[in-house]
């Protein structure tokens, strides 16, 4: 295998039931690229329809890809594929984490780890290059993620990376995570590890990742990539006027400016003007603490952090001595929803004590650390909205036994005291009482507590799908494009291809021109809040967004940054470079692959996801059973008509047309939205077609 490049060449299969290991050839999965693609293929081949997430027959696949560990820019993601307990059908889903875990996996010589069966007693998996063993984890059971990581790392050579679950995963809380590096968590699959009695994976690798290309060519592409890259979410315009910048946009994550610092660094580090040509300030562009918490956070910012080989540092690391008051470490790190979701649990607001914004920051910081240690997931912040609905509708009072209801520290909640979160997360993690049902996920909570139509149909609760997941860059992002994307997965969509462009900060005329060059017409994109009826280019834009997302999670590249649709460079007319993935892939693997050829692989991976969903749900009628959107999308702003400026309201018929056009672009059945036999065969998925045919799950 020594001449394999890009990929490490081997996949590790761990059978927990009998404690055996096997090394398998990665190249049998090469048409599925890596990461997510390998995950789906293994699930298709090996996990029978009808299996539930916590059954021993379920498998969980940790995937890296041919670019992970190569040093390709932003190639630090780990893709985890398994059945998802919070989904009503336990349909397949991916959870992703950044950090350094998958790179280490590659350096240990593995492209993926397939974990199957169930261990008779708690274990952790130890990997040092090709030395693999299962270690006793009984003494780790019941411990949080931080301590577990310290223990596991302590039993390994320096430099080991550890992915672990907390008590929430052990207790098979549906909303639980797998985590590495203290703040990089993959949401939804912690309980699968818990159900299998596996607490952690520790990896240390000391081997190289080879590439096929000449190093000079590789470094040239690296240079091009570093020229077009922006700030976090590939925002390419700064948030405030800068001497070098033609534009600025308030909501840009490119927050750096002279005088804004990492205030708790010693000495403080000035983020500065960050001219896009200066390679040594790329990592200063995103002062994420201030973006996530407001100005108050500057003084607590130690630095930014993030994933392997990524120059954009999107996690803020904070030193807040007051955290010790809550029995926590003064040091906390996270980003975006990792901070905002605990904030959302404080449904009566935040303490007004201290500086402006301090109360909110404290809630977010306390909650982030608790959730990260227990390993609780938030279903993209839905847990807080479910709590809010149950509380405000009076349902909580009805469903909770009086004694339990009275034991909840409502006074802390009213005061906005973050101490409330200490109590809340403990109940969720240890499944204490009826309240902990919130940890089962929206679908199950709504069912058990009989949530009313107003929960699903009001825009206040953000529900996108009756399958129990919220919106995630949906109709407010490029109208039908974001809406289609949000309906295609079995959990909240984690696609950022479209929102990275619309959030880039560039004027809409430039955005339209750019996407026109990529997709074929500027009509693919509407101006914000000024929507036009569906057209085929929007369907193409949605398809391109999703298949790039699938590719990124297979290669593995970060879809919070990729693709490089635009750049911060005026001299390039703000054009990015959408061929960089295929250039990297070709150079790493030695398989010359064009942009279109790589996109086809993404299409294959995404279609396999659809086939898995059809198989697990046991119906071809995706249009009516899987894809529908909650009512509020069609009823918000009652006084306004769809397609009038100022509303994000969607039109029912137009959205049905959108689905039809999208299915057509994908080569799926236009009536049901299920993959057709012809398309499956075109994508090299003949075996998938045959099995679906046998099950009667091919559209007529």
């Amino acid at each position, binding site marked *: 295998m020594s001449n394999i490049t890009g990929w490490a060449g081997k996949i590790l299969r761990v059978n927990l039931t009998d404690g055996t290991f096997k090394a398998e050839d990665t190249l049998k999965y090469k048409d599925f690229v890596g990461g997510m693609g390998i995950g789906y293929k293994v699930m298709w081949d090996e996990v029978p329809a009808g299996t539930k997430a916590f059954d021993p027959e379920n498998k969980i696949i940790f995937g890296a890809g041919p670019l992970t560990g190569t040093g390709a820019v932003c190639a630090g993601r780990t893709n985890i594929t398994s059945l998802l307990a919070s989904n009503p059908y336990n349909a397949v889903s991916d959870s992703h984490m950044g950090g*350094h875990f998958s790179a280490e996996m590659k350096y240990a010589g593995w492209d993926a780890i397939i974990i199957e069966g169930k261990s008779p007693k708690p274990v952790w998996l130890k990997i040092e290059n090709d030395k693999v063993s299962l270690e006793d984890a009984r003494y780790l059971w019941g411990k949080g993620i931080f301590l577990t990581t310290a223990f596991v790392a302590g039993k390994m050579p320096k430099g080991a990376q550890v992915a672990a679950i907390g008590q929430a995963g052990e207790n098979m809380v549906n909303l639980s995570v797998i985590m590495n590096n*203290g703040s990089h968590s993959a949401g939804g699959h912690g309980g699968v590890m818990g159900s299998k009695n596996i607490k952690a994976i520790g990896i240390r690798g000391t081997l*190289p*990742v080879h590439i096929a290309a000449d190093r000079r060519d590789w470094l040239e592409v690296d240079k091009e990539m570093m020229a077009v890259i922006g700030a976090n979410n590939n925002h390419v315009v700064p948030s405030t006027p800068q001497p070098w910048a033609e534009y600025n946009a308030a909501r840009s994550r490119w927050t750096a400016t002279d005088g804004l610092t990492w205030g708790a660094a010693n000495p403080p*580090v000035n983020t500065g003007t960050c001219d896009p040509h200066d390679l040594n*300030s790329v990592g200063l562009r995103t002062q994420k603490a201030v973006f996530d918490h407001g100005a108050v956070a500057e003084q607590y910012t130690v630095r930014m952090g993030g994933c392997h*080989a990524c120059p954009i*540092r999107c996690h803020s690391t904070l030193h807040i001595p007051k955290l010790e008051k809550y029995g926590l470490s003064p040091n906390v790190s996270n980003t975006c929803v990792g901070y905002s979701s605990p904030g959302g649990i404080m449904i009566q607001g935040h303490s007004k004590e201290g500086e402006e914004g301090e109360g909110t920051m404290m809630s977010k910081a306390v909650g982030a650390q608790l959730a990260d240690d227990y390993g609780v997931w938030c279903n993209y912040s839905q847990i807080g909205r479910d709590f809010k609905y149950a509380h405000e509708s009076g349902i909580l009072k009805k469903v909770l036994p009086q004694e339990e209801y009275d034991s909840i520290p409502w006074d802390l909640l009213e005061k906005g005291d973050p101490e409330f979160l200490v109590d809340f997360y403990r109940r969720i993690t240890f499944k204490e009482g009826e309240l902990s049902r919130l940890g089962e996920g929206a679908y199950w909570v709504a069912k058990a507590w009989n949530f009313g139509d107003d929960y699903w149909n009001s825009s206040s609760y953000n529900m996108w799908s009756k399958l129990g997941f919220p919106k995630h860059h949906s109709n407010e992002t490029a109208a039908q494009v974001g809406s289609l994307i949000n309906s295609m997965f079995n959990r909240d969509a984690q696609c950022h291809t479209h929102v990275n462009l619309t959030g880039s900060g560039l004027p809409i005329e430039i955005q339209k021109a750019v996407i026109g060059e990529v997709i074929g017409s500027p009509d693919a994109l509407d101006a914000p809040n000024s929507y036009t009826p569906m057209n085929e280019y929007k369907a193409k834009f949605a398809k391109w967004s999703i298949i790039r997302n699938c590719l990124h999670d297979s290669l593995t590249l970060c879809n919070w940054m990729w693709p490089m649709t635009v750049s911060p460079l005026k001299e390039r007319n703000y054009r990015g470079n959408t061929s960089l993935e295929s250039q990297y892939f070709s150079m790493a693997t030695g398989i010359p692959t064009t942009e279109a050829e790589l996109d086809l692989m993404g299409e294959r991976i995404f279609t396999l996801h659809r086939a898995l969903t059809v198989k697990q749900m046991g119906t071809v009628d995706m249009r009516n059973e899987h894809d529908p959107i909650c009512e509020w999308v069609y009823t918000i702003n009652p006084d306004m008509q769809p397609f009038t400026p100022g509303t994000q309201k969607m039109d029912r018929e137009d959205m049905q047309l959108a689905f039809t056009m999208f299915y057509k672009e994908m080569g799926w059945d236009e009536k049901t939205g299920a993959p057709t036999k012809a398309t499956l065969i075109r994508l090299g998925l003949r075996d998938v077609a045959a099995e679906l045919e046998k099950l009667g799950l091919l559209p007529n």
Partner: protein
Amino acid sequence: MSQDEKKGLLEKTSTRREFLKIGCKSIAGAAVSMTVLGFLGYSNAADVTGFPLSTGLLISDASRCTGCRRCETICTMFNDGKTDPYIARVKVGRNYNFGRDNITAAYRTNDGVFGNFMVAADTCKQCKEPACAAACPVGAIEAQEKTGTRVVNESKCVGCGACAAACPWAVITVDGETKKSKKCVLCYQCVKNCPTGSLKLIPWQEVKAAVRRHA
């Protein structure tokens, strides 16, 4: 090993520990002070002027390092044509989670991302008296004529690893594939590519000036 050698080693070890203690904090801001130079083995101006010195000194400003490890990947891609943090001449990954020291009960406040977030790159100090060169049984580690940079002469290197064992900073590694020792040659790639300017090459002119000021 003779008594003297042992003593030398001990001294080095304690020097190293001392350095690490102040390292993160004092080098922050890239100020070259006498203290720092002292820890690197240069105790007076004569030392600096009288020895065939390397072009400069590569340091990591810990207050700016975000642990992205681009330095490790770029270093090995540029010098070895593959990505291999294990043999990178700048080493960050091993310090990433829990800092340079062993994991203790105080890990939530010690260095590393599980603690106070302090991550710093270990760099070759181009030592005045390079232990790596002294340890090499075939004399494969030499000072480059013009620059003074201590480099491995690969035609001589037998890959025995004596240098790696001797280096008090553990920043020289034998490549498992080529069986050649890999040490920093001051190629400057990590400095050029560090996204936060944490890595800096301080030219000796500046070092000398600093020493003269202090001497």
